[in-house]
């Protein structure tokens, strides 16, 4: 990632249920003993194989890194990532990658898949009445999170372990996607059953409702002038902004579907034009490629664009190793009345000052690889130490402080099963993209800028 001044910025971006990305630079004087470990070629088994190294970042040095066990080191990890590209030159080495979810679905959508014949245990997760139907209801079937966890365990994905599984109460039966990676499959199933998942730095996957995985009661407040701890809340100083945008606002939506059906939806919020009393008309015309879905498509697009979009952006938060206190998926308090970021129904007192913050879900967190952090390379070379210390050669950020960036059209919006169902019925193909990026948390792969969705049918984007 290159900053405006041309300097390469060493950062880690973590995104809720997405691979995120990281990049790291090593100096030109990195010794050859380490340079040779930065390779994907592994011939140790007698056959040339692809063996990606990983990085492990800790907030404090691990003195016994040369002998520590894999499990112990990963337990200390602030961030564990797979190295997906290595660029070597005389003057520097550039490493980039993403988090461990890459193993379940890389940039091309490739990942493990529980293949097997119809007699394979995997088929037992599907209804016998229709192929590829994921069943999670009370009659003789475990619930969705347990099912996913069992699949991960049973089919020994050889990368991740099954972590903590907590089921939601949502039941049902859905038709699964026919193509894509296992991560996309998990995205789809979780969207249908009000579940979320988290790839942990210790190679485990936790699956459950958001409230089971993440802090839904904030323990952090970010405000321009909060520092220290007051009661149970930690204050972190940060800058934030609200942007209002009518670029997609509509008064009416007209949709046509494949079968020639016609549907409309009208906003309950009239638009006043420059003339004043006349109701303005901003009509959006759209189409759905599923027969009979015109009305639903029209209403879904109307729901998204009926009012001005407000995007709350947290620009920066000055805190070393921010992820010790806040992870993507957690809720934090944000408060800055001059940016319209306040909620008078929510009172807290911080260091004797009353504040009325909003509750805000952090979806993406970007933080610098700064001085003080320690970086280790996790190799798989049987003849070498499992971990190698890269810290002396890393080009660290000197700016210090963390940066948080999260955009959403609704600070407290959580993708519910009804949203997923609404999206699903608009297109029975299974992979649905709902218009703008603000709803991308559950739409498959929209958050990954490098990949376009593929599948048997494409949903139509509005606007």
């Amino acid at each position: 990632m290159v900053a405006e001044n041309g300097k390469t910025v060493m950062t880690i971006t973590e995104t809720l249920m997405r691979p995120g990305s990281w990049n790291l630079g090593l100096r030109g004087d990195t010794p050859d003993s380490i340079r040779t470990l930065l390779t994907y070629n592994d011939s140790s088994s007698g056959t040339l194989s692809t063996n990606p190294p990983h990085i492990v970042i800790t907030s404090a040095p691990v003195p016994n890194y040369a002998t520590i066990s894999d499990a112990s080191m990963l337990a200390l990890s602030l961030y564990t990532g797979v190295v997906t590209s290595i660029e070597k030159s005389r003057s520097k080495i550039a490493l980039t990658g993403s988090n461990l979810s890459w193993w379940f679905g890389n940039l091309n959508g490739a990942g493990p898949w529980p293949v097997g014949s119809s007699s394979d245990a995997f088929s037992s997760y599907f209804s016998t009445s229709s192929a590829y139907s994921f069943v999670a209801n009370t009659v003789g079937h475990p619930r969705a999170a347990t099912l996913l966890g069992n699949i991960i365990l049973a089919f020994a994905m050889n990368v991740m372990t099954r972590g903590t599984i907590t089921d939601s109460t949502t039941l049902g039966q859905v038709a699964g996607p026919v193509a894509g990676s296992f991560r996309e499959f998990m995205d789809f199933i979780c969207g249908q059953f009000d579940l979320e998942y988290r790839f942990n730095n210790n190679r485990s996957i936790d699956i459950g409702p958001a409230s089971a995985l993440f802090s839904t009661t904030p323990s952090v407040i970010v405000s321009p002038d909060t520092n220290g701890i007051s009661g149970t809340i930690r204050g972190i100083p940060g800058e934030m902004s609200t942007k209002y945008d009518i670029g997609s606002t509509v008064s009416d939506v007209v949709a046509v579907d494949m079968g020639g059906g016609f549907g409309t939806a009208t906003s309950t919020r009239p638009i006043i034009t420059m003339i004043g009393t006349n109701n303005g008309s901003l009509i959006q015309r759209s189409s759905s490629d599923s027969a009979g879905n015109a009305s639903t498509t029209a209403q879904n697009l109307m729901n998204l664009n009926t009012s001005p979009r407000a995007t709350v952006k947290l620009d920066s938060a000055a805190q070393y190793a921010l992820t010790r206190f806040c992870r993507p998926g957690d809720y934090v308090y944000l408060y800055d009345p001059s940016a319209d970021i306040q909620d008078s129904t929510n009172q807290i007192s911080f260091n004797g000052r009353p504040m009325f913050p909003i509750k805000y879900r952090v979806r993406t967190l970007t933080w610098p690889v700064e001085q003080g952090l320690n970086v280790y390379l996790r190799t798989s070379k049987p003849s070498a130490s499992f971990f190698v210390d890269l810290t002396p050669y890393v080009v660290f950020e000197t700016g210090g402080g963390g940066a948080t960036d999260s955009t959403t059209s609704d600070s407290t919006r959580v993708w519910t099963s009804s949203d997923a169902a609404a999206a699903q019925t608009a297109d029975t193909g299974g992979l649905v993209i709902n218009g703008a990026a603000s709803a991308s948390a559950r739409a498959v792969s929209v958050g990954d800028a490098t990949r376009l969705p593929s599948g048997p049918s494409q949903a139509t984007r509005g606007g």
Partner: protein
Amino acid sequence: MTLSIGWATGLRPTKFSPSYGSSISVEGTILGSSVNEFKARRQQLLGMQSNTDELFVPVVWVTDSTLDGYYAVSNVTVQRKSTTASPNGVFGLTLTPLSQAGNAAAEVTVQSVVRTNVLSIATMAPVVAYALPNTVSEDDFRFLSSLTSINRPAGDDAGALLGTIAVKTKTAAISSQTTFRTVTPASTAYVGACQIQYSPDGGATWFTWSGRQVPLTRLWRITNGHVRLTSANGATPGKLEVYDSANTRWESTSIQHSTNTSNPQAISGPGIGLGTGSSQPTISIAYNSPELVAVKCNDATREVTYSLQRGAMLVVCEWASIVSGASITFGVGPSSAVASTTVGSWGNVAASTDGQGNKPVYGYSPNTAASTVRRDVTNGWVNNNTADTKGVMMMGVVLDSAAPATGNAAADLGDQFFGLVSWSQRMVRRS
């Protein structure tokens, strides 16, 4: 000619190059009468640099008011010269005016709601605005309606009248962010302003602290010219004082915290500032601006924050248990028994006036519904009836209780306590 910059007074510039509209470099001597005063002035000057709680401070040139105004302070250097004689130090700094020095207004953003409480109290009338001594036509309160204006005289440390500010209360919450402007010359900017003060010599002299540095001394007080809360000092209990402009003096009552678990019972508990009678923890400054001061301290059991707002006749104390899972009892009351009557569902007020014609008021707002207010009317203290992990209390005084002024009765203080007001002030260009 002498110069006051923020809270630092007794400065004599010996070299300055004013240029109207741009920065002014000032060098001079500090006319401290003692080493303690020099140290106080040094801290006051250094503490103003990059103080985000108060970016622009009033500067008053005693013999030439044409340069009075609001300035940001930077490039501060202070050096001690003499340990005995005055002047005992030299200083240098840069003053950068806000726009043109005198062209400034205080813009205050305020928001108020009913303090969340389990006593079913849904109405309040907190102080939501104030007008400083000024040219009234410059004030702008148009965004606040239905205000009740109360004139509150503010005293200086010794008891002389500094000036009167018009404090404005509003029944019912301002639910959205509201802003008002008040304009005052720099010479009256600190009338009724909140201060954190400390004493290096056991209470003989007091100095104002600038910024958020942690003071090393342990005898402290917070004041806004109307009420003043002083920490305990060894065996001497803390004090709650009210300013009486008719007699130009501060009138005090001894108070302390209560950890009593039954009632009636003589008050028992740590002093103000969590002193044990022999030792006392240091405080840290959570916020230090003219519109609000807040100081924090903790002992092994709890963390306590004392806060005072501009224009208020009461001090608020919030506390939280710092031992995970531990619930405790914690309140406040007079150090010696004061027969009291209950007021509302939240507090006690002295049944009779004290020797100075005043009645102290103590109130409590429990955190959880299971915990109501325990009120000892024999001894006067209040605390939480059921042990809890946090709570909030207030201590105030009804001045001249035989005929309290508008907004100063015990019930009014309760209204002001249950109105939770957040505000921040910044200096802006007036025109």
